[in-house]
Structures are given as C-alpha cells and as structure tokens.
C-alpha cells in the first residue's frame, strides 16, 4: 500500500470511479468536508469494506456517491434512521452519515434528536450552509436572523437552530463544530468522532456561494470564505468572555459562532447496552424468561 501524502493520492485511494466530477458549484464548502473526512479515514486506517456511508437528500447528502464504499442515499431527513437499522443488522460496520442543515435540523430533526438521546453508535457529519442549497436557496432552520432566502425575501425572523447545543443536551458522546476554512482541528475532530462509541456529531459551517452567499451579499468566493473566519470564535474564548468579559467584549462576540469541541464523553453506546440485554435474556431458560427487575435510573 502506497503511503498517501497528497490530495491526489488520497482521492485515488478513496473515491469511486465514474462519479467524477461532483455536482458541487465553484466555491462550495462540501468538497472540503469530503476531503477532511477522507484524511481522517486515512489516518485511522479504517477498512473501507466495513465502513458504510448514509445520507439524506441535498447537495451535502450526495457525498456517499463519491466515496468508494457501501453507501445508502436515502430520503430527505431520514438517513440517521436508516443507519440505525444498518448498524443493528451488523454492529461490526462503522456508520458515517452526511447530512445538510435542512436535512438534519429541519425535516430530519426528530431522528437526530432520538439517535443522540439513544447514544446510537454512528457519526453524523452535518454540513451547515444556512440554506437549502440543492433546491435553490429556501429558508433553512439554521438561517441566521435577518438573512435572505427565496422564501424569506424580507429577511428571516425565526431564531436559528443550534444543533451542537441540542446534541450536547441530549448526552451525545462527542459534539464539535468547525468551519471548512481550517483543516487541522476538523480532521482531528472527525477522527475523534469516528473513534467514539455512541453518537458523535461534527457540524461544519460551510459556504454555499450559489444559494446563500450571493443573495446575502457576502461578496465573491474569497470574501465569502473569509466571512467564516471573521464570524467564528473558539468556544473556550467565547465562554470565557461571556462569563468574565466586559460588556463591550460580550457585545463583540455575542453573535459569533462558537467553534470547537462542545462535548467529549465516554458513555455506553446503544448497542453496548443492547448486547448486555441480549446476554441477560438469552442466558435464562427460554421456558422461564428472565424476570425484568425494574431499576429506574435517573
């Protein structure tokens, strides 16, 4: 096996023949997330025969098509539920879900919530471009207040969804948010997420120049990408300022997106608990099944 050092070598190793070029527009952030994920997989040395990708519908959800591995491109918002079944049928498989902000936080919100609550063993990579890219720029549940979408022509009046804090509150084992503009922390973060048992989420803030940047006057592609650096702050800094900063400092950062690792736990994943249950009930005689002893835990 040749050592992978360049992006070309990486692509050769991981991408599916015959699917190139991608559907992504110039300046789209999705391709970068794909590359970061592939670098993480390369560093982990995972067996691609045992790695399955699932996705919903959207530009971001096209990702599994490009990767030379088993991939299930499902219905809008439902990938996490499909992946739950794949994992149940074969817990030896590693499940990676690519999803968009509309796919995951909009139509698929319920599946996301419950998979996080179950600590379902899978990694969700949600690409948040604040917009429904594929369908031409309609309002997403993550759209910043005041932003313009084709279906919010006078500016968005709905407070946006913070999917990382939601996952954190639900007890997901690993939660992080990054932008696509820096490679190193995100690649490490994806690696950490993939290595976790239970539910892990990495959210990427990614530009969609076509459907979001253009309409919101974020400038050309270069300027649009810079917007992500100028509007994000490391979560440690954000929390320090919000707790101990001056009013002026707070004012400066309050509308920025905190990025970094939001949660890092090692609680048992769903299948660890399920396997214990199976051991317990299969151990008893089939004629007299184990009596459930109710132990209500908080």
């Amino acid at each position: 096996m040749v050592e992978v050092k360049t992006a070309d070598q990486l692509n050769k190793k991981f991408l599916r023949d015959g699917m190139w070029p991608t559907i992504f527009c110039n300046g789209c952030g999705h391709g970068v997330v794909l590359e970061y994920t592939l670098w993480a997989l390369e560093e982990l040395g995972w067996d691609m025969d045992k790695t399955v990708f699932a996705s919903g519908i959207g530009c971001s959800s096209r990702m599994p098509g490009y990767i030379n591995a088993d991939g299930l491109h499902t219905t809008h918002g439902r990938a996490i539920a499909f992946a739950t079944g794949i994992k149940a049928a074969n817990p030896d498989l590693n499940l990676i879900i690519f999803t968009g902000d509309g796919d995951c936080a909009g139509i698929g919100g319920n599946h996301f919530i419950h998979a996080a609550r179950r600590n379902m063993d899978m990694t969700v990579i949600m690409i948040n471009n604040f917009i429904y890219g594929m369908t031409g720029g309609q309002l997403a549940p993550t759209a910043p207040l005041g932003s313009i979408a084709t279906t919010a022509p006078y500016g968005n009046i709905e407070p946006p969804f913070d999917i990382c804090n939601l996952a954190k509150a639900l007890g997901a084992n690993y939660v992080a948010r990054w932008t696509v503009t820096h490679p190193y922390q995100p690649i490490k973060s994806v690696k950490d997420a993939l290595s976790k048992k239970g539910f892990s989420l990495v959210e990427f803030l990614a530009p969609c120049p076509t459907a979001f940047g253009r309409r919101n006057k974020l400038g050309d592609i270069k300027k649009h990408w810079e917007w992500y650096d100028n509007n994000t702050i490391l979560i440690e800094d954000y929390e320090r300022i919000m707790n101990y900063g001056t009013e002026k400092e707070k004012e400066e950062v309050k509308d920025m997106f905190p990025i970094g690792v939001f949660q890092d736990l090692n609680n048992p994943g769903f299948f660890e608990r399920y396997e214990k249950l199976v051991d317990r009930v299969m151990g008893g005689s089939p004629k007299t099944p184990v009596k459930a002893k109710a132990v209500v835990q908080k």
Partner: protein
Amino acid sequence: MVYKRDPKKIREVLGNKVQFLLGDMACVYGGLLAGVSFFGGYPITPASEVAEGMARMLPRVGGTYIQMEDEIGSIAAVIGAAWGGAKSMTATSGPGFSLMMENYGFAVMTETPCVIVNVQRTGPSTGQPTLGAQGDMMQARYGTHGDLEALAFAPSTVQECLDLTIEAFNLSEKYRNPVCVMTDGEMGHLRERIVIPDEKDLKLINRVEATISKNKYIPFTNSQTVKGSKVPDFPTFGIGYHTYVTGLTHNEKGFPATDKQKDHERLVKRITEKITDDADKLVKVEKFNLDDADTVFVTYGASARPAETAMEIARSKGKKVGLLTLKIVWPFPEKIVAKLAKQVDKIIVPEMNLGQIYHPVREAACGNCEVEVAPKIGGEMHLPVELLKYLGVK
C-alpha cells in the same frame, strides 16, 4: 454480532406447537419462523401487539427490536437493516402506514426486501383506532408516488396471519421488493387455534447474495447468478461490493441518472416486470363451490369469513353461490376473475370499505357479468344476513 437463525432457539421461545393465539401475535410468530432479526416499530392500535411480541421475543433469539421515534423512522430502519443483511419487518395501522409511504417507495426503487404488516383500522385520519377496516388496500398498491408493482397478502384466519407472514418474507426475499401483510383490526385481535409448522415443512427463501467477482459485479441489473431472473443479486453492506444505493433514478451501476429517459425506463420496467412476469405464479386464492355457481363472492381478509357463512346458508336454500377468497391481493389475480366473470351472472365483492378491490374486479370482469360491491364501514364486520340480501335470500 450478526444474527444467525437458530431454529431450536426460535421454537423454544415460541413454545407449544398448538396454541390459542392472537392474530397480531401470529404475525410475530411468522416473522420469527421466517428468520426476522430486526424489527423497528412504533405503537399504534390495533397493531401494537406485534411490536410488543417482538420486543419480548426478538432479544431472546438474538435479534434486535428498536422502538423508533415514528413510523417514518421504523420503515427507514427496517430498510437499513435489510441492507445490513437482516430479514426485517415492521407493523403498523393506517396513520402509520400513511407516514411510511415515502420510504415504501424507496424500498421499491432500491429493491430492498422487507415486510410491512398493516393491521388496518377505519379511516380517514385517526378514524376508529380499535376497530377493523380494509380501507388501505389501494394505498398498498398506489399509495406511494411513481410506477411500481405491489406485493400484498390478506389473511382471513389467525393461522394465515402466521403462514402468510412467512410467505411475505419469502416473496420479499425472492423479488427484492417490500411486501405488505394487510390484516385488519378484526384479524389482529381475533384469537384462534394455530399450529406452528415443523421445521421440515417450512420452505424459506433467502435473497440471492452477490458472489460474482467484484470487478464483474453490476448491482442493478438482471441476476448475474440466476439465469433469466430480473432480480439483481444482493450486495449486502460490509462484504466489499461498495455499492451505491440511491432512490434517485439510477443506471445499472447504481449511479444517479436523473436526466436520462432510457435509464429510467429500463430501471422501472425491470423492477415492475420482475413481478408482472410472474403474475401467474403469484396467484394465491381459495375456491369454494365455483364449479356450478351462478353468483360468487370475491373477497379477502376478514370479509371472507361472513361471506363463507352466507354462501353456506344460501347453498342450503338451493342457491348456487360460490366464493373466491384472495390470499394475495396484489398482484391482482386478473385472469382468474376474468374467467369467472365469463362463467357466472354476478360477482359480489364484500369489503370493509366503500369499494376498493371492487375496482380491479370490475376491470377484470370487463362487462362479462354484473359486479356489485357489498360495503360495510364503521368498524363492524358484515353479518351473513346482510350478505344474503345481496343474493336475494331471506
């Protein structure tokens, strides 16, 4: 750990060979005997007993039961499990069946074997949750968007709930298509004597797994193993075929072909023809007193029970009445009904709806005899006397 069907374990968990059993539980038994290893469900009357039975029994045979967040998630997980290598199943009733429609179509388009039990209750909407009906028969056929062929069974005894659930798995594995078991609140909550078939009498079909070398493998085309079969070999996830499975129109390699007329036509024709080509083999009906009949009931599911009684009463009064009970409703046994229409004066279609299967019956009869629907709604079964009126018997 990947599930391996263990007949001894299954039979230990199911218990005695002869039992007095609830219809919903008979679907559980059928599933377990067929080798189901994943059930994803969401509670709904009158189908909840299927989920409850699975929650009790599946872990004890080493399978996985998960109560999903809704029916959309249930069927999604069931389809995912099939790709992970499992025989998988869900059970629901009208409102949940409606929620499943989008992913039901996804299962058709991606050629995913799975079984959906629909214990029908009255509708539209929430209707009468505890009461039986047959209002979803057309939904099983036409409820999801696009062109497809449906496979659906309709049991009319508790024993058939068991047997036909096994058959449903067999057809889903054989044709790589979702299969519906259309029971109803009456069947689901009826208790009857059942006999668990012996292992040696069970005929189980398993999907043809892809075995051809990876560089020759074509995922969405005629079988590369079984000559003449339009059903592709199944590349279970995790065995190295690296298949891309999408609900978008795809070419034979599985790649999106969203703007190609030819690819769409080829794909949809193959996934419908794999079923229509076998339409004659897929007939499963029961015939009573058809030879000399001038009037026949054509019916299915719970409605076959009062129809049978009505037929017997009418016969005892000298009327030449017959009964044709459909066990597989989709594909519709068109040829049989067409032939019958040429022989009899009248076909009566008792249904617990305002007339659904009545329509394909009329289409097949093609004006060769009179066809009348005998509808009953509101959560009650037909009384035999009500059906006798259609025969002019007092």
